[in-house]
């Protein structure tokens, strides 16, 4: 197994990346942001508890012992909203950088031709690159996962239940799929473009479009987002009434929905926010209920992932693309 070219290339990819300054800088940046987001959420919760305790003490001092105030509830998985949002943005950038580096270094050093003149098939070459970077992204997410679990349980003295741990694990598995999509996108563009920096520019343009612009347009077009607290909520409308209103704007809603559906980021966010209960309606719900609702998003991100991998293989095997390299 050790002599299989896929594993030899994968091992080199992994060791190259963990020595790469740009990758390490982005990783450090991501860890700092995750730490800050966890701290801010923890302090926020702490202040809610303090406010609650103060209010209870005041009520008691006023003699209203029997008054009931809703105690702030603690949902550790909801603390990860910031982490997921940073993974959406910085994680995608890391994926793009890794995809670019893995092809650019071979093209730039002219080692691509050397490697392909060895007894290495094109499938092994791309397979090794994907495997090495998959392991790298899994390690990166694993480190963040360990960091989250240890900081929340070690510092906050809050321990995750087994179902919460499973949800956390699944959320990170979806994050792996999401990050790998950006890795494959950038790698396949780097294979395609003769002038490799163009691949990076196009990758970032796509990132900008599907991570920042499309979701923002979709959110802005959502009628419920027009006023703080939600338009329908402020109008005291039931779900049936909401649907009735929306049905009058079918073309508009279809367009808005199609826009959101085209963004892999939106599918990832919907899926992970539901899994972790960050979206309140899914908080505390069983995985069964969540997946009944969100299987479509899972299929979407998986299709993006598998599609980009297949496209990378197909493109690399294309005769014309290899002609450009030689």
């Amino acid at each position, binding site marked *: 197994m050790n002599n299989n070219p896929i594993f*030899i290339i994968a091992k*080199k990819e992994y060791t190259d990346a963990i020595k790469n300054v740009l990758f390490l800088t982005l990783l450090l940046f991501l860890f700092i942001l995750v730490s800050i987001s966890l701290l801010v959420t923890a302090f926020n919760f702490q202040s809610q508890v303090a406010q609650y305790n103060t209010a209870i003490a005041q009520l008691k001092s006023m003699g209203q012992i029997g008054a009931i105030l809703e105690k702030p509830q603690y949902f550790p998985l909801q603390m990860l909203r910031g982490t997921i949002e940073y993974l959406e943005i910085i994680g995608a950038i890391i994926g793009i950088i890794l995809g670019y580096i893995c092809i650019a*270094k071979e093209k730039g*050093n002219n080692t691509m031709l*050397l490697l392909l003149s060895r*007894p290495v098939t094109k499938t092994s070459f791309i397979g090794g690159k994907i495997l090495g970077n998959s392991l790298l992204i899994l390690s990166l997410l694993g480190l963040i996962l360990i960091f989250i679990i240890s900081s929340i349980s070690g510092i906050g003295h809050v321990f995750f239940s087994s179902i919460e741990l499973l949800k956390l694990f699944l959320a990170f598995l979806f994050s792996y799929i999401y990050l790998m999509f950006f890795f494959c996108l950038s790698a396949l563009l780097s294979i395609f473009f003769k002038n490799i920096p163009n691949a990076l520019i196009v990758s970032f343009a796509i990132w900008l479009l599907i991570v920042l612009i499309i979701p923002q347009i979709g959110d802005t077009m959502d009628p419920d987002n027009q006023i703080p607290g939600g338009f329908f909520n402020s109008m005291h409308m039931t779900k049936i009434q909401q649907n009735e209103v929306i049905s009058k704007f079918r073309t508009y809603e279809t367009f808005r929905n199609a826009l959101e559906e085209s963004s892999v980021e939106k599918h990832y966010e919907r899926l992970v926010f539901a899994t972790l209960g960050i979206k309140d309606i899914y908080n505390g719900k069983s995985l069964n209920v969540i997946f009944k609702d969100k299987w479509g998003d899972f299929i979407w991100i998986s299709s993006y992932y598998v599609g980009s991998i297949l496209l990378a293989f197909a493109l690399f095997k294309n005769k014309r693309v290899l002609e450009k390299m030689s």
Partner: protein
Amino acid sequence: MFKDEPIIETIDLSHRYNTHNALDNLNLTIYSGEIFGFLGHNGAGKTTTVNILTTLLKQTSGTAKIAGLDTVKESIEVRRHIGYLPENVTFYNNLTAFENLAYFAKLSGVKNVEAKVIEVLTYLNFSEVKDKKLGGFSKGMRQRIGIAQAIIHEPEILFLDEPTSGLDPLGIKNLREIIIRLNHEKQITIFMNTHLLSEVAKTCTTIGVLNHGRLIYKDSLKNTLKRFPTEVSLEEIYVQMETNGNN
């Protein structure tokens, strides 16, 4: 020892890039033990020929054989028989000479990698750079690492694409000595694309001239010099061949 049998053979080999005919019915036979200098102007089709022979490119039509193996149908097996040094390879600057060579050795299926890398570096009188990173290497040093990676799996044929490009006179002399040693001591057949006619005169046993994708001349260097008695140098012979070829 050297065998008198074809080790490289192309039959009606043609390749087109869109509408451009890069190679036009190339029929070429190179025998085991030769040092073959492949000459031609820029864009004549020399690199395309090497890319097809090294299995990097599939020809549009015709066949190419290396050690009797078809370069398309038996490409992986062909790669075990050849070593290749493309033009302008810089290798991995973040790795040491040893790490670079070990990587290519593993990919070539070499068994005892560490011993083999040391053996090759020693053979090329280059063992002192073993633990140095390639980032600080000169062009000449990189070419020597390039030769080391190309011969680490003991190939029968070595393809060199413009190996002297960018080298200073000392670098060219060192490379020439290495090529001749590899041919004499290790019986490696050398296929060399080059522009430097002076090097061809000093290194090659056979020459071929490619003009707009067509082979217009092939013979031993000895016969070539005999055939053109009025020309004082190989350069003049080449110019005459190119002129005739264009006409």
